[in-house]
């Protein structure tokens, strides 16, 4: 039973982790993209459609591509035309939910394609840990690899330093010759691809079917997780898994007949998030160091 619980925690946490990781990179470059939910849901419907037509792996690619396309739309408006990031992000979410509903109309009521797990030989034979960590779907492996990759990129490479510089002081970065808009576009695109993958996980692994509004607010949770993790990739893993664990634990507690009000249990993940945020916010210096200073501010290079 422990194994079953942990497996469902992984399934619940992976889309949050993927979407939040993408947003983290975008926010590190100073762009607040509130369209995560919209990019996710479009990724979800694209993945479902491609998987129906050409199988699971095509679905994964289509999800990533669709999320990326949505992100480019956002970049064109919010970065190159310098519209308000908040308003554009919200519009992207509304647009995404609408477009996905429209595109998915004929998929409602169709059973989906479930992506087969990739079983790693030998390692998956390790008792207990093997089936949990080495017989997973591609999204789980990707999420872990991307977290490690992003952590290394942001804090150990010159390009990562540039990206953070753009997020902290775009004018200064511009002055020393860093292409602010190109850097930000790249970061936003990465965010969109990750959100698209997170959406694809929903329709290919979590619940292999298309239903409108299948994301059910997960994009917003991913946004909150970025703050929760104070823009640090490794903390994101802790946040996503804590959130996933609390979500799953409440159902097991109920099924076991433990007498705790179910509304309280439903609220637990959010209460835990608030608690951690309060603890983080109480350390002002820490918050100052990690928050991208120019987050959400449009940058127009003067010529």
């Amino acid at each position, binding site marked *: *039973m422990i194994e*079953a*619980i942990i497996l*469902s925690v992984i399934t*619940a946490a992976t889309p949050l982790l993927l979407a939040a990781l993408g947003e983290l990179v975008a926010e590190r470059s100073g762009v607040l993209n509130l369209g995560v939910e919209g990019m996710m849901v479009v990724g979800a419907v694209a993945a479902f459609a491609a998987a129906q037509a050409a199988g699971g792996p095509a679905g994964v690619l289509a999800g990533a591509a669709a999320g990326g396309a949505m992100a480019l739309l956002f970049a064109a408006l919010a970065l190159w035309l310098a519209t308000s990031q908040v308003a554009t992000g919200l519009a992207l979410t*509304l*647009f995404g*939910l*609408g*477009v996905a*509903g*429209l595109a*998915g*109309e004929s998929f*409602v*009521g*169709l*059973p989906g394609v*479930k992506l087969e797990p990739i079983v790693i030989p030998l390692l998956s034979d390790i008792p207990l840990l093997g089936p949990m960590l080495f017989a997973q779907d591609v999204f789980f492996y990707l999420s872990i690899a991307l977290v490690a990759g992003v952590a290394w990129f942001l804090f150990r490479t010159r390009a990562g330093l540039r990206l953070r510089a753009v997020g902290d002081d775009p004018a200064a970065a511009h002055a020393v010759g860093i292409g602010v808009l190109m850097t930000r576009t790249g970061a936003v695109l990465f965010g969109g691809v990750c959100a698209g993958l997170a959406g694809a996980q*929903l329709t290919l692994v*979590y*619940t*292999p*079917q*298309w*239903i*409108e*509004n*299948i994301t*059910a607010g*997960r994009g917003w949770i991913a946004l909150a997780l970025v703050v929760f993790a104070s823009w640090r990739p490794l903390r994101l893993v802790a946040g996503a898994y804590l959130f996933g664990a609390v*979500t*799953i634990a409440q*159902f*097991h507690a*109920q*099924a*076991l*007949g433990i*007498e705790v*009000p*179910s*509304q309280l249990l*439903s609220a637990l993940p959010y209460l835990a998030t608030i608690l951690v945020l309060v603890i983080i916010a109480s350390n002002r210096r820490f918050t100052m160091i990690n928050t991208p200073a120019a987050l959400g501010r449009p940058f127009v290079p003067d010529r």
Partner: protein
Amino acid sequence: MKRLIACAVAMGVAGFAAPAAASEDPTKACFIYVGPVGDYGWSYQHDRGRLDVETEFGDQVETQFLESVSEGADAERAIERFARSGCNIIFTTSFGFMDATNEVAARFPDVKFEHATGYKREHPNVSTYNSKFYQGRYIIGQIAAAVSETGEAGYIASFPIPEVIRGINAFMLGAQSVNPDFQVRIVWVNSWFDPGREADAAKALIGQGVDILTQHTDSTAPMQVAAEEGIKAFGQASNMFRFGPSTQLTSIIDDWGPYYIERVGAVINGTWEQSDTWDGLLEGNVAMADYTNMPEEIAAKARETEEAIRNGTLEPFTGPINKQDGTVWLEEGQRATAEELLGLNFYIQGIDGAIPD
């Protein structure tokens, strides 16, 4: 495009879903849904009813709908916009729209309002309607107890309102009529529609040893999890057979078409009057999907029960029935009144756990 705008309204931006008008002065029937029309469950079935109205009356009617309208301040605004835009009859299809429907109805006495699953008719232009889904739940309870090997079913519940509690009680009454010791594990997901949470709840229940799943939420996710894990399950609101061809035992199907046709017809003829309708298997508002994936004798018994409920010889809520704590609720042969059933807020004997407040 219609859908896009509807979505925008749900998120709090004003706008309208407006298919082209057909002929001169058609009657305008408008529908407000709590979920997306593509949920393949509750809202999907209401929308099927709307399409039935279009088919029946053709050019005489024009229909509109708003989907994913949340139960709260948004609902009142959405209903009011409909009323202002010239709708002749407005169907509000979720319990949580009850107060908003009555408030708007007071301001628009010439518009007819129809609220599903509620009980407040504060103005002469408000009717209520509901279906006796509990009749179906009694049948699936019987099937569950007959098919289950572990003697334990999992029940994925949404919100602790009388409608849902009535369903749980009816399910257990059916189950106890076959196996008096039958157990049910209930998980509340506090949502009508969240495929991910419903799937998680299903996995948790299966992990704890139930071998039958039933749900009072709107998505097909639990059926799919049951199919993956190789246990049996019951569909909800629509026929979910395609999501579990070797899993679904039967499904309680909502059919709102006949009622919507009758009520819209009454508006067209000018004969609409306030009413409180609570129909079930007999009238066709509730239907059972084919009895599949079970031995023939259990299916035969289910059909028998269905027929008995239809012709009135069997009423699930007939005494002797005790409340959870063992006190008597209904004496031998006594039937629960409609009011008691509509306000039901306690479990019957044999169900463990407390109802969340």
